[in-house]
């Protein structure tokens, strides 16, 4: 450090240079970690995606073959469909549900903090543990869900065994994990200026009108933020489905692969079928999909209202 400090650049005073180095030293664990464990593997995976690479033997360059194989891979298409299903159907349901919950929790009622705690609690439960509990809730024979529905004369439903019900079951389960988003919405709701709501009151606006014309526009940046974050997260949907469907042999995906998601198939390709090159190609396609989806969302974000723009 001392030697480096003596190399003085004209525009960089000794003191500045020193504090730069110190700063660098402080962030070095993060920078080194990022370069070694993120940046380099990312670059490598791009190369591997053009190779036939089984991890044990040296990669063998095959050009675009992996990408071509993706076009014809039936299982890959299933995984892609399932993932889009979660993003296009599951995510909006979750966000709307979370928003409604936040609206309810923003009202002034007795025991509010208790309710807030209850709704947030699932978010601090480890996903794996919670999914195991849901495994039993959804159980076709002994599950509490079927038991309760049975009181109303509903026939037993194979929540996780009937391919028609598996993804709706996952979406249903996902509502339970909404605590974080609810919390973000709650914070957003606190920021809605009371003056605007009072003005709307004076103008004779009802609760619905206030929600749609005041509250929603005012927290639209928050909604946009959760949308972007969750679109990215839902494209990487993995843990819940893996825990619910993994078998002793390491297979996963549920009946007829109805719960096989993109990240799961990627993992299987890489670590169970020895096809690291193929898995890398999948990863890059997923990256492209997420990039496009995010770009489209930003392009179409005209509905988002930023107060600071006034």
């Amino acid at each position, binding site marked *: 450090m001392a030697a480096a400090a003596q190399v003085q650049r004209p525009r960089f005073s000794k*003191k500045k240079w*020193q*504090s730069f180095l*110190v700063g660098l*030293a402080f962030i070095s*664990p993060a920078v080194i970690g990022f370069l070694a464990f993120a940046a380099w593997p990312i670059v490598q995976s791009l190369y591997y995606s053009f190779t*036939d690479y*089984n*991890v*044990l*033997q040296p990669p063998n360059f095959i050009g675009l073959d992996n990408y071509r194989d993706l076009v014809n891979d*039936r299982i890959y298409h299933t995984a892609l469909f399932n993932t889009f299903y979660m993003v296009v159907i599951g995510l909006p349901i979750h966000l709307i549900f979370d928003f409604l919950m936040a609206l309810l929790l923003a009202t002034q009622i007795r025991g509010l903090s208790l309710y807030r705690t209850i709704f947030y609690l699932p978010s601090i439960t480890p996903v794996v543990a919670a999914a195991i509990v849901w495994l039993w809730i959804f*159980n*076709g*024979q*002994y599950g509490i869900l079927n038991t309760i529905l049975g009181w109303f004369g509903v026939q*037993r439903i*194979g929540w*996780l*065994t*009937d*391919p028609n019900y598996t993804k709706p079951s996952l979406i249903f389960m996902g509502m339970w994990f909404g605590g974080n988003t609810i919390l973000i919405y709650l914070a957003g709701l606190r920021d809605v200026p009371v003056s605007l709501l009072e003005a709307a009151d004076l103008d004779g606006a009802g609760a619905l009108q206030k929600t749609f014309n005041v509250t929603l526009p005012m927290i639209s940046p928050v909604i946009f933020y959760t949308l972007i974050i969750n679109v990215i997260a839902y494209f990487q949907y993995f843990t819940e489905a893996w825990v619910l469907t993994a078998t*002793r042999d*390491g*297979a996963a995906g549920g*009946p*007829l*692969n109805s719960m096989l998601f993109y990240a799961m198939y990627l993992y299987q390709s890489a*670590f*169970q*079928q*020895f096809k690291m090159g193929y898995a890398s190609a999948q990863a890059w396609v997923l990256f492209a999909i997420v990039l496009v989806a995010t770009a489209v969302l930003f392009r179409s974000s005209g509905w988002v209202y930023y107060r600071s723009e006034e």
Partner: protein
Amino acid sequence: MSEQIVSGHRSLTRRNFLQMMGAGSAVMALAACAAPITPAGAPAAGGEAAAGGGAQTGQAFLNYWTGWSGFEYDELQKMVDKFNEANPDTFVNMSTVFGQYDKVLTAIAGGNPPDVVSAIWLRQLVSMAARDGLQPLTPYAEAAGITGEGYFPQFWNAWQYEGDLWGMMITSNSQVIAYQPAIFQEVGLDPAAPPQNTAELDAASQALEKMDAAGNIERVGLLPAGLTWWGRVFGGNFYDETNKQITANDPKVVASLEWMNTYRERLGPEKVAAFQSGFGDFMSTQNSFFAGKEAMTQVGEWFIQFQKQFAPDLVMEFIAAPAPEGGRENCTAFDGSVFTIPVGVKNADASWEFIRWLSEDQNMGDFCYAIQNVPPKLAPASEERFVGDPRFQMAVDLLNGPNAFGPDKMPVNDLLYTRLDEAQSAVFNGQMSAQDALDRVTQEVQAELDKQLK
């Protein structure tokens, strides 16, 4: 130079800074120690070796990864302890990777493999060997005078690929059907005359089924599943080794899948699925067979130990899979955990010594007896402690018979088995016909095989 190097809310002295850096690197160093994929102490951890006996330097430290868990793991640990005691020059540290066999590949690829690994299924042996993941054991076996003599020939043969020996098993399993004579009696079947062919099996299964008032299944006779076994029982084959052709759509394999599906069609696929989802943990007293939900179940001779452990009062008998006309009588399919030495291990001699020791008649026999598996060698398998039980005798006879089948020797078994499972599930769910499903398996696996063999 100023002592205060960072301005902000609070100034930080250089001493503080250095202290923090020191503490930070200490934490990182500790994290680095805990991070490696090796489940337990690494070879460098000489202290652990010391715990096992002689602390002298030069003691070989072997990391051994096993797939056994539960009481089977405990029994194996006893063998490892015995080995460590008998071989002061070597210390074997065993860890289980039960349910995480993927780790083996990552560890080998990462250049930090376990010294001995048995968390490899026989069906994966060829794919690991063909991809340069394993060391051939041929030179070691030759030097030790192990030539396959004394082994069941089909096992010894199953471990060979392209002229080399790639691994050895110390346990093996056959597949049988267990049944409960008490339930047979309850429904008026003669427990002394269990089904001899598939027609009789169908009739017995129906007689043993029990539904509740709402039509939900309470007990089944047998729910046949598993193409790799039933396909063989029906006389089919999955691979033509001479022509390197996948034959999963062999008419006899198709027939076996159609037959299995008749059970689902009769009982209702949704009801079967709901019924099966209510099965308790397999390795527990809640096991569906012990709990009386299945009057017959597909298991192996190892189930004798499970029964002793979890349902000691239950009476259980075995039969071989009843075959249809034109099928294979006394047919069994075997797989098993293979002891191998990955490439890149530091002391392969010591690794081999551990495998060789476990393969000695006495040691192999003791471990197999403790977990009620069939020793893959004829001498220990014929000991009275094993074949004194007629059920065990049946398992040994099946494995020693002409219709004992191991996994096919080709590098895409994992894919074949996954696709066969999918095909089975698609047919059971009424999505596809058995013919279409198996045609698709054949075509897709063949394409992958061609790629591998290129």
